[in-house]
């Protein structure tokens, strides 16, 4: 018993320490949403993200570009710890968000993920009605009032620009919508819990040009209320919508700057080569 008690005491001490650390050290300026410091990520022995430092600006669109396999998706998923689903993961360094280091072991993933939403590459509506899809996030938080849920559904759909298209089909199965509508449904679902930051993992990769256009407009609109990070394959997309662009190559951050600067006069030779299409 005594040993267990001692263990308990030690663990609680550590936790308290950690909490203090979180509160004490991790203050960042108000205009910065997240600060990444010496960040590394490993899949087993493979170092997928190497020593990245950058600041994500609040209410701006930050684009991550780079050839496939450069680690931009992995880096993106670190912001809401979706990488934890992969066996053999390991984080090193710091990502400071909401005055806390979110890649520490004590982070509460449920809380974090409700603050950092994510939209995946492939539109994945749940095979339920449109209404249930959007109400899901609020329901698991314990909101049971149906009128309230309806309001949330309506608001989120309006914000995602989908209300006029589906307001008469709310009880249809969501998988019957078109690809672009499905993706906007996923965005609305993410909005329904009001995250502070939204991550987009190549949201337009499986869509046609028209739907892509609609979603790009939506992203620009969303940036008024949210901080948006988007990992994208298409350099044109990054140039069109983002305020800041980070170019990653082989897991390293090569250059991070204003989008205009990156696309007009990059500092690094590698960035220029990539943008002009010499490789990648």
């Amino acid at each position, binding site marked *: 018993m005594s040993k267990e008690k001692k263990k308990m005491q030690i663990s609680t001490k550590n936790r308290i320490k950690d909490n203090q650390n979180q509160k004490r050290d991790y203050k960042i300026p108000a205009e910065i949403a997240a600060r990444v410091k010496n960040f590394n990520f490993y899949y087993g022995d493979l170092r997928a993200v190497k020593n990245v430092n950058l600041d994500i600006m609040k209410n701006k669109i930050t684009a991550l570009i780079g050839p496939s396999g450069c680690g931009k998706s992995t880096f993106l998923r670190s912001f*809401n710890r*979706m990488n934890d*689903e992969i*066996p*053999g993961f390991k984080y090193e360094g710091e990502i400071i968000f909401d005055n806390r280091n979110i890649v520490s072991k004590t982070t*509460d*993933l*449920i*809380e974090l*993920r*409700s*603050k950092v*939403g*994510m939209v*995946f590459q*492939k539109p*994945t509506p*749940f*095979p339920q009605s449109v*209404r249930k899809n959007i109400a*899901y*996030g*609020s329901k*698991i*938080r*314990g*909101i*049971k*009032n*149906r*009128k*309230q849920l*309806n*309001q*949330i*559904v*309506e*608001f989120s759909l309006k*914000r995602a620009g989908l209300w006029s298209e589906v307001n008469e089909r*709310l009880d249809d199965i969501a*998988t019957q919508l078109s690809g672009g509508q499905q993706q906007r449904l*996923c965005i609305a*679902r*993410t909005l329904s*819990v*009001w995250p502070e930051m939204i991550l987009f993992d190549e949201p337009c990769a499986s869509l046609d040009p028209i739907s892509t256009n609609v979603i790009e407009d939506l992203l620009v609109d969303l940036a008024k*209320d949210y901080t948006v990070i988007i990992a994208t394959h298409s350099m044109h997309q990054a140039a069109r919508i983002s305020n800041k662009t980070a170019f990653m190559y082989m897991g390293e951050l090569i250059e991070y700057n204003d989008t205009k600067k990156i696309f007009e006069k990059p500092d690094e030779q590698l960035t220029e080569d990539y943008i002009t299409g010499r490789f990648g």
Partner: protein
Amino acid sequence: MHIFRKSDSKTNKESEVVNLDSSDDFKEFTSKHSDSSSLELRRKMNRGIKYFLMIMAIFASLMTLFITLYLIIEALPVMTSFRQIRELLFDNNWNPKEEHFGAFNLLLSSLIVTFYAIIIAVPFGIGIGILMAEFLPQKSKKIVKPTIEIISAIPSVIMGLIAFRYLAMIIQQTSFALGLQELLSSGRVAITASITLAFMTVPMIASLTDDALSAVPSNLKKASLALGSSNWEAVSKVSLPHARSSIISAIILAFGRVIGETMVVLMVVSNNPALNKGWFNPFQEIYALPSAIAGEVGDIVIGDAQWSALFFLGLELLFVSLIITTIGRNIATGKISFKFITRMFKKEYWTLKENKHSKNDGYFKLFTMRLRKTFTRKVPLKENKDLNMDTRNKSKVKIGRFFDDTIQEKEETINQTKTELRDYYSMFRKNSSTKKKITERTFKIIFYLLLGMIIGALLIVFGVVVYDGVQNLWPIDFIQGPSYSYMQAGHYGYLKSAIGTIIVVGTAALIGLPISTFAGIYLYFYIKPTNRFCNILRNGIQNISTIPSVVVGLFGWGIFVNIFGWGKSILAGGFTLMIMMIPIATSTTIEALKQVPFSMRHNALALGSTKWESIKDHNLRYSFPSIVTGYLFSISRVIGETAPIILTVAASVYSPSIFPDSLINTGVSMLPFDIYILGLFTDKLYPNSFSWAMTCALILLLLAIGLFIIGQILRSKFQVKYE
């Protein structure tokens, strides 16, 4: 705003609704709800459920260990000295009355029956497997595969009854007609049981072969076809060698399954442990291990030497089938390979050794050398020597001159070589393509014949059961089960036995299905596949399915009937059948859960749900129809189990009420037991007992196959579409 009109009256009573008109409203609203106290509760729930699931998985996987330990404890009295163990294992004098327990011949008998069953089943199984994977069109495969799988849903006791009554007779009469009385004086010999068991094993080998061949990357076969090989060549020279280890493992797994099969051998073969006609003669009477356990357990005194000896037999059977199945599985995963043996038989292996290649040459060099040798040997130069040498020389000479020629000359030479080459190859083409077609067609015909034989046998089995069973479908007294005095008067009814069967299997399902569902969820979601603990749990649950049913029955009889003191009863039988149900239901649950894409759960997690919520709301919900199908499938597998029932529940009861009186200490009459008892009676003692047995068989068959088919229909109707 007015979406849930129906429930407006309800919602009015609930707390006030916050109006969400602008982004700021929404932000304020959600910030209120994000710190709600329910978060702590959800977290606790998540953690609690994880531990609950873990306990269930551990409980399920410890079953094999329990059974083994219990068998060892009970068998200890006869294993006190080395001499005793030696006698048990290697002596061939089995005579319990004089306390001689030499079980060597019993094990040998089991091996004989199983060996010949597999020998017969392998060509059928592999042939049908190849046919299903490579040659049957998609549409007919959809019909053929379930039809073949129905065979494995036929309870073994029914097969035993039919073999005992008809096959044994046929074999005896043919041997008499051919004048082979000396070889085969009676039909109740090992080969009869082997044929029956072979028929029951074919679906297992066939479907495993089909799976193995379907798993071969299609590129390999396409590459072979692109080189101009026929379909059969592509299958036999590319796909089959690639799937070889899986097919070998299928055969070995089938061996492990058949060796524990009890009822067929018990009913068909007359027991004789002497083995007078030599060790591997299938035309003789034998006494197999499972038969000894099931047959002798009824009339022994608890705690005496024979009791312990029987438990020793159970242990022996358990270990034999465990070892065989483990070997089979490791071959499939590639941990054991026979490559070094096949290599030994090749000349190159030795010649290369004689040439003393240095060790540094490595496999690549050896491989290329072997490759070169095989290729040089296979090119058929000799048959067309003249033409071949001609073209070769000419083209060589011409190519040598090529660079000195003018353009016109060059074109001429090129055209000439082209035509010559074309002639040269066309000779092969003509010869080989007809040959190829003939071989492909013969093999196809053979496979279709094999398939036809199996389906014909299936139809005969159904026909016999229906023909004999329908006669008594509306008996004089609907209710009464087989009570001997009652039966002498010519009465029998199956209703009570059917109800008894349903109650016992229902008890097993009530306990077993939840446990196996929880275990399946834990194994699939909560444990990394690379984890060592996971491997232990997984193997533990898998291993239950390799335990022969009669051993499970022995365990149930020892623990539930005797130690717990429940007597032969519903509870004892239910718990015993539960053990048999767990591995099947766990694996079907895992298969069902696998069908839901992981992205569903990831999306839910990204919305901030806990792990348990994401599983419960999505994976469990969408895979529910498949899980229920798995339930019905596992019930249909267990409903025909006979050996465990004989040991733990079934009894011939004569009582006026239809439903059993209590859960413990009263035996229940059950269909499989009735089939076994009635089938073995002669008609002189009890008139019409055989046709009653067949009536029971018909009802049991309808139950088992009905559940199987209902499950399939359910799954196809309610399957969720994700895109």
